[in-house]
């Protein structure tokens, strides 16, 4: 018997980083296999995307959150980070300033997310290397990630290169932390003390008619 999809552990993964780093491009390529080379405007309308991913033979449901352009005014508020199992930090390898901002983004993730949350660094726009656009070397990115205890890879949402890897690696790291995973296994409304207002209000309206 296949297990019900609702019983998959739910993992909350955030994508953060400076404007224009390619966060939404990564999200859309990975989740919908879409890429719009013309789109360079700030993201509107994407809250999060859901993706089922099996790692080591076990299936997980990833809820991958985008910043919705909130990084432009540094208004990613504390509630964005609640309950995140992993934070993927994206910078643009053709833009040095973008890479240099990573330290501040790591600080922000560390101070707001759970101390156990997995951090993962992604250098984007790998396709631009061919045209001589690289401004941050692979080694530099890797060394910074290592120093922060974060995973690392470079990707291209345009060519699909490595687009899956951050997510697979992140899940792999999460499942090695039982204390992180325990919150993913418990559905929000049972166990613990959190209430499910939606379910309750449905039954209320059902009673009323």
């Amino acid at each position, binding site marked *: 018997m296949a297990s019900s999809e609702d019983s998959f552990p739910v993992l909350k993964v955030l994508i953060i980083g400076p404007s224009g780093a390619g966060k939404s491009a990564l999200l859309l390529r990975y989740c919908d296999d879409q890429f719009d080379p013309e789109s360079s405007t700030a993201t509107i309308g994407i809250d999060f995307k859901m*993706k089922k991913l099996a790692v080591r033979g076990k299936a997980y449901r990833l809820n991958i959150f985008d910043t919705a352009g909130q990084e432009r005014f540094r208004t990613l508020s504390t509630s964005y980070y609640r309950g995140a199992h992993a934070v993927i930090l994206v910078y643009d390898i053709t833009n040095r300033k973008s890479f240099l901002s990573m330290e501040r983004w790591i600080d922000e993730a560390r101070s707001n997310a759970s101390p156990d949350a997995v951090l993962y660094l992604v250098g984007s726009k790998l396709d631009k290397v061919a045209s001589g656009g690289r401004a941050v070397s692979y080694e530099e990115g890797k060394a910074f990630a290592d120093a922060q205890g974060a995973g690392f890879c470079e990707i291209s949402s345009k060519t699909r290169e490595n687009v899956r890897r951050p997510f697979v690696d992140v899940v792999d790291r999460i499942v090695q932390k039982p204390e992180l995973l325990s919150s993913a296994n418990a559905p929000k409304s049972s166990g613990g003390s959190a209430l499910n207002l939606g379910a309750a209000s449905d039954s209320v309206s059902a009673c009323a008619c």
Partner: protein
Amino acid sequence: MNTSEDPVAVEEPKQQDEPENRDATDGREEPADAESRPDTSSIRRSEIFRRASIWQHPDAAARGLAFPRAYTLALAPQIIHTRSKLLTQLVSSRAYRQVEFLSVGSYFVYNATGVDSDSKLARIPSSREDVFSTQSIPLRSKRSLMKFLKFVVDYEYEEHKPIWEEQAGIPLADFLSTEFKLDEDLQKYILALTLTLDGKVTVKDGLAIIHRHLTSMNLFGPGFCAVYPKWGGSSEIAQVACRAGAVGGGIYMLDTRMEIDEGSKGGEISITLSDGVKIRTRSLISSQKDPVGNGECITRLVAVANSPLKPLFEVTLEGAPTPAVAVVAFPSNSFPGISDSESDTPVYAFVHSSDTGECPVGQSVVYLTTLTTPQAEQRLSAALNTLLNTVPSVDKTPTCLYKLQYEQTVTPREALTSARGGAPVFELPSPNLSLSFNDDPLDIVKAAWKLIMKNDASFEEAEAGYMIFQDREGMGDHDDD
């Protein structure tokens, strides 16, 4: 665009390392870099929160006070009764999905003459079964209490109106005594449920509040009548709303002030933000800053205790969720040693467990509130000490590690409407001081929304769909390894 002059003025979860320079202060002073910025010298902060002070136990770290980020203290915590329209709107807007709600559990009343901790902190029965099974109420009183509770549930029915309508304006306590023969203890229970700050609620208001309390019970689950958002209360709802706005393409900026430019004209208001950016808008929603003279004012004391205060968070009904908030009422005249020239007023304590995410596991946060009077500070302090010394504790007497105290007052209660350069300016009143969220702000927010939307061609359609949104979930493909 909508903006507010002080978008984080209220209920922002306060970080412990900076309470003296944030909203709770008498904050006319500008941030240090303000001088280098244009046109901000006349901008001032609201004085709704004022006279703040903090205290830390000299041995705090050794006794368990953690790093500042481990705490998220609410400045103006309110519980939300499940009958509140706020919850209806949170559900219809699907915003509830981003908020974790916890249940508010037992209400306790402090009784100075009690002989043990059970009688000193008496739990108010929350249901009919509860009333029957409780040992603390004599049988005769139980009958009167049941009669009253039955009455309140249908008090607005025509046949019940003659019982109270003519007495609508008298104190509820008098009515309880004459009409229902409730003894003094039961009167205290009922008054505690109203959470009224002066302890002198009228029959009309009191019945409405008790009615809401009783009809909220079991609505969203067994054994509770109110909820509280995890991680700091209403500020979480504000953040979720901002996020929803951002996803919808709105822009919000925190900690940014603004000033209306003199040159506003032609149906547009020109605004300069504190970072120097200039914008124009066809309507402006802002918040009032000036406290009303002699307005209602409360003194708040927020205390971090190094104990989970477990006995306050027991599940009293099978199948009920573990409560994260307990309410303790100290009725008027609970502390005879402390008396004001004016009559003594009650103190209410909201005790939050670490399930709220506001403090580390093993600790709790106590939010005490009383009307501001010359003795308010002593009353709050006495209530806190009494609470910590009365709740049964397995090992050691709970110690207070940290205290934050301040006053909160109000602006005039009506929204202010004016015009600049031919465009409307709408100024929201400050939050009310009610300890349980009352729905008034929802009407004022809707009025602001109408002001912005009224000239929209599809206004009627938009109004029909007010606060109704779809879930924001996107489903991707399967990705199997």
